[in-house]
């Protein structure tokens, strides 16, 4: 298991900063790894959508497949994260983290197949 950091004393600064500090200190590195991936997917989806709205949706199928790939991958990664999180062990008694990763891999491959089909 990845080592967790000991919680520090809560600061008197505004809640966002303290939330960020708590997140940084209490989340294991593995989950942060997945969180970085989720953040990247969100950014990518937002940028694609902004391009579609601002400039053009000309190859509409391309926009749809790109956007759907980010959204789909986000959903899969988020479910992986929640299943792998050791604090959720009581929620997912029958699903081992390895099983979760296998599901994630299978789902990603199927998603990629459909995205490539639609990409054109």
């Amino acid at each position: 298991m990845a080592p967790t950091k000991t919680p520090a004393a809560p600061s008197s600064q505004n809640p966002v900063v303290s939330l960020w500090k708590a997140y940084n200190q209490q989340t294991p590195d593995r989950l942060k790894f997945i969180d970085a991936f989720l953040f990247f997917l969100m950014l990518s989806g937002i940028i694609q959508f902004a391009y579609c709205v601002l400039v053009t949706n000309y190859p509409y199928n391309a926009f749809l497949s790109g956007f759907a790939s980010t959204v789909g991958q986000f959903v899969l990664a988020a479910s992986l994260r929640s299943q792998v999180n050791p604090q959720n062990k009581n929620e997912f008694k029958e699903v081992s983290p390895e099983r979760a990763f296998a599901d994630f891999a299978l789902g990603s491959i199927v998603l990629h197949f459909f995205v490539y089909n639609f990409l054109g």
Partner: protein
Amino acid sequence: MFYPLALLLLAVTAQASTLTLKSPRFAVSDSTGSQLRGEPFSLTSRTASPVKLGARENLKITFQVVDKEDEKGVQPHQTFIRFYDASTGEEGIQPVRVTPGGKAKFDLNLSKPPLYLPPTSDEPLKVSLIIGTPDYDPLSVQLFDLVLPRSQPAPVHPDEVVFHPRPELYHTFRPEQKVPNKFISLVFSGIALAPWFVLLGLWSQVAPRATGLFSPSILPFIASLGAFEGLLFTYWLKLRLGDVLLYGAILGVVTVFTGRQALSSIAAKRTQ
């Protein structure tokens, strides 16, 4: 070869009786009854001047059908008066009642115009007499021309427009969609690729130790996943659906085995 010739001779020598008319006469009279024009007509020559009929006038045709040889009255099976308009091709035919003695009388009263008259055009109507009966030669002779007052035009059938060429159709299609300006495309391509750098930057900070990644129990699984991605990329470039499904099935079987091996080894390490 002699058969049609024999038929011709037979027709010539057959009983070829002719009909003719005795005292044929037509008369135009107005609504009060006074006669405006009355003269005989003949089968051999057409009446020269056309007969003009006014709005309330009456045309009366009388004749007697007789055999040419013995001048006896004949009641033909079919006797018709035909009004034909050469310019439009319309015609109206009316049977004439003939007594057994051969006497016939035909009335055309324009106060009550009959329905069989064709609509009036610029040309006069050709009036002809048609008689047909067994044992006699048939008769179809133009008698005179008839000028009628103006009538309503012929009614047009509602489906008439379907039988003529219709106006040509011009479809308007949605204009072609244009590719936006190259510079804007490049700028936005750069912006779209920027999250990758963000990802790499974040991952460099929080990357967990990947010690077990290249161990012999886990590496085949990673390799099969990578092969799947490669297969899908190649499918995008040049493969067809049947091919990719076939290769994918084979690769899937391989991945199942490598995956079980890899993940069970990790699970064993975790529960230790």
